[in-house]
């Protein structure tokens, strides 16, 4: 018996107001394993070429993998045509984002492997999925409400144990970097998924499930539960650090090693003030407890409450990305201000990574006189001005005045503003740089996370070659990357075998092959949609022209990325991934990876090399 999958996908058409259960193609499941791969295949099959992000034809998918709800699998992967990710010619590319929490597991318990949503509702709606049935309901009473209000209101209305994914006012107003939130502070934040949901007038997806997840070998999984738990709790220092401070520990260490963001990525090292938003500040001022995603024995979200000043009483779970991009990147020195902003962005449904980048870009424009006080609606937008940042975020959420420009993301905003502002617009393929795991200013190895990413400047694409493979597998199995790295390939292979009954992988080579297939499939899809790797796999000007002047890297060769070295690195990368010198997968690679079905369509778009 094939387990691990529930074998059903929920297809929702909001234009026709219909829901339909489609069987999962088990051949595809075996070939692409889980969430990330399966969704790419579905996008290839179902989405029309050249669909724009806000068109009703856009499909937004929420998927789980074969280990979701079992062991420690809990993530939900979201895919769509992104309003933010784009080629330099302005064609929308793939949007990819993921969230932890309880939603993914609940969807499996409700009897579905995934949900695909297309069309556009006339009036605001939300989707209620319960035990194999689904219903589209009116969300008139939810529209316009913040993420926090929606979550509580739906839980009161439906069932206290319902799990909700929802968008905030930012998504409703089609802010291009709005996110999809869950349980207040968990969010599928990157690439503008919230705006896609907003364009479909879909406010929320509530899920409740009480049915079993079928598995192939329950005894095998029972034995693995203990093993996996032991391995994840195994490395003492790592676990302790994660449970006590969470991801924010990287805040200080990244600055110390000169790889963090500072002043819109102008510098990477902040001598004194970096401690003002770090984990120890949070712990001593605000932290009360930690929260974890479903089935995770090392909960890393640090929940806390601001106890003093104008924002007293505000809850927040800061993480490395939100604090680093709001605190050093906008040069905020008031810790409570950072936490209050982070919480406010969550309640409005904005991605704090992209928002932090956008605000810091606007601050630099103001400093350089590219945007004047009149342009900014009279806001004194100096570095670290927290009340001004609040005011600006309110405008962005409602798209008022200057907020309408900034809501487009820095790629479009810098094109409209001009005057050289695009040289310090820190984005790749339209998506503002994240920091977690890879966010390094001029680090020549790790900036490749952003260069090669098919989802734009997303830190969750993986920093190194092996790292990208890890992330692809983690997203496929819907296991958190930190947990995946604590497990060895044999354990994962055994877990998949016990769950599905199929031998997916036994060695690292098998796993890499799976990852390679998914990554090349994504690239092929993006090329079909208009990506020109040669031109679009690029970095912002700042990386090549403005050397770091502070910290340990100042004055060394690592202070600047040499343009010649960049193109050499790119060629090495293309070669390792089986692409030609223009970054396009060769026919041999596609055939070897069992992706021959893409060749006829790709040949329409580009010249494919034989090998």
């Amino acid at each position, binding site marked *: 018996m094939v387990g691990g999958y529930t074998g059903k996908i929920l297809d929702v058409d909001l234009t026709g107001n219909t829901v339909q259960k489609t069987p999962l193609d088990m051949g595809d499941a075996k070939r692409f394993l889980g969430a990330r791969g399966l969704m790419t295949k579905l996008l290839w099959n179902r989405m029309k070429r050249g669909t724009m992000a806000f068109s009703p034809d856009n499909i937004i998918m929420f998927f789980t993998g074969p280990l979701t709800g079992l062991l420690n699998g809990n993530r939900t992967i979201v895919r769509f045509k992104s309003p933010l990710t784009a080629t330099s010619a302005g064609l929308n590319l793939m949007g990819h984002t993921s969230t932890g929490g309880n939603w993914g597991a609940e969807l499996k318990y409700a009897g579905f492997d995934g949900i695909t949503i297309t069309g556009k509702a006339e009036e605001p709606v939300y989707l209620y999925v319960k035990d194999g049935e689904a219903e589209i309901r009116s969300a008139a009473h939810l529209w316009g409400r913040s993420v926090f209000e929606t979550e509580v209101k739906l839980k009161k209305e439906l069932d*206290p*144990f319902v799990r909700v994914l929802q968008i905030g006012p930012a998504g409703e107003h089609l802010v291009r970097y709005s996110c999809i939130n869950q*349980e207040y502070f968990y969010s599928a934040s990157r690439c503008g998924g919230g705006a896609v949901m907003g364009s479909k007038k879909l406010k929320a997806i509530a899920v409740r499930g009480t049915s079993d997840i079928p598995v192939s070998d329950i005894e095998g999984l*029972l034995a693995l539960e203990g093993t996996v738990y032991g391995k994840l709790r195994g490395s003492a220092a790592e676990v302790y650090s994660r449970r006590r401070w969470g991801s924010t520990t990287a805040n200080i260490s990244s600055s110390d090693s000169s790889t963090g963001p500072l002043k819109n990525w102008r510098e990477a090292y902040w001598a004194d003030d970096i*401690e003002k938003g770090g984990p120890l500040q949070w712990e*001593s001022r605000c932290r009360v407890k930690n929260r974890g995603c479903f089935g*995770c*024995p090392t909960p890393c979200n640090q929940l806390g*409450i601001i106890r003093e000043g104008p924002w007293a009483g505000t809850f927040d779970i800061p993480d490395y990305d939100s604090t680093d991009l709001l605190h050093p990147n906008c040069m905020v020195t008031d810790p409570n201000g950072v936490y209050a902003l982070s919480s406010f962005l969550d309640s409005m449904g904005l991605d704090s990574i992209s928002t932090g980048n956008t605000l810091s870009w606007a601050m630099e424009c103001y400093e350089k006189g590219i945007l004047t006080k009149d342009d900014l609606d009279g806001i004194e937008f100096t570095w670290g001005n927290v009340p001004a940042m609040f005011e600006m975020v309110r405008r962005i959420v409602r798209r008022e005045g200057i907020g309408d420009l900034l809501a487009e993301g820095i790629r479009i905003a810098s094109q409209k503003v001009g005057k050289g502002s695009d040289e310090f617009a820190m984005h790749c393929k339209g998506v503002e740089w994240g920091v977690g795991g890879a966010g390094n200013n001029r680090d020549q190895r790790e900036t490749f996370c952003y260069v090669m990413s098919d989802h734009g400047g997303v830190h969750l694409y993986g920093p190194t070659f092996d790292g990208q493979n890890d992330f692809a597998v983690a997203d496929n199995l819907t296991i958190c990357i930190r947990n995946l790295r604590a497990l060895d390939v044999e354990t994962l292979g055994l877990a998949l075998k016990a769950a599905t009954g199929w031998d997916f992988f036994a060695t690292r080579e098998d796993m890499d092959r799976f990852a390679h297939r998914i990554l090349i499939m994504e690239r092929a899809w993006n090329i079909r949609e208009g990506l020109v790797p040669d031109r679009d796999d690029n970095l912002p000007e700042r990386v090549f022209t403005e050397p770091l002047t502070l910290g340990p890297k100042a004055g060394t060769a690592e202070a600047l990325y040499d343009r010649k070295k960049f193109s050499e690195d790119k060629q090495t990368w293309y070669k390792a991934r089986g692409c030609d010198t223009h970054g396009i997968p060769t026919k041999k690679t596609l055939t070897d990876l069992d992706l021959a079905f893409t060749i006829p369509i790709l040949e329409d778009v580009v010249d494919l090399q034989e090998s």
Partner: protein
Amino acid sequence: MDYPAPKVLTSCDLISCRFPKRRTERISMKNPMQIFVDRALPGCSGCRICEKVCALQHEKKYNPAYSRVKVYQFYPGPIDVPIVCQYCGDRPCVSACPTGALTYDNATFQMRVDEATCTSCQACNQACIDNQRGGCITFHPTKGIAQICDLCGGEPQCATFCPSDTLHFLPISRFSKRLAEPAKLIASRIADQFYPVQKEVERRGP
């Protein structure tokens, strides 16, 4: 309320501290035992591993609906509160059962549900709620039969696996008063600890 700004530590080296290992010694059921839910911070992380392993232990299936322990979420926060049978001395659930399906076994110190006579009327859970307790009895998602914590026969999986040191397996004699309380009340007690304010401790119970 204004607190003086705390002194800031500067180094990240603290993270190399050793994580204390959990004791997992088995205590056989020679005494009446219970699952003790720790309400001190940081407390429950809401990971629901307890629900997962409880269902696996009792039904060998991946489905938290079979779980005898239920993690509630309260907002704002979220604050997570696990609710599980506290083995109260007076047992209003047993006296409320119209068919006698729910019993307490004095020899093994365990609650028992007789599947043949349980009529899924849910009176036991209602009695639990009506007596200002947690409402800790869950119901089988398809059969509707009452499910109550039986302490896994003396080796409770939830306490063994709890990663947050929230669920513990302890003798009832440690506590002079019953510990069962509504989830909402527990949540508000946890929330009280969010601000470091000394609160008067009130005595409860008979």
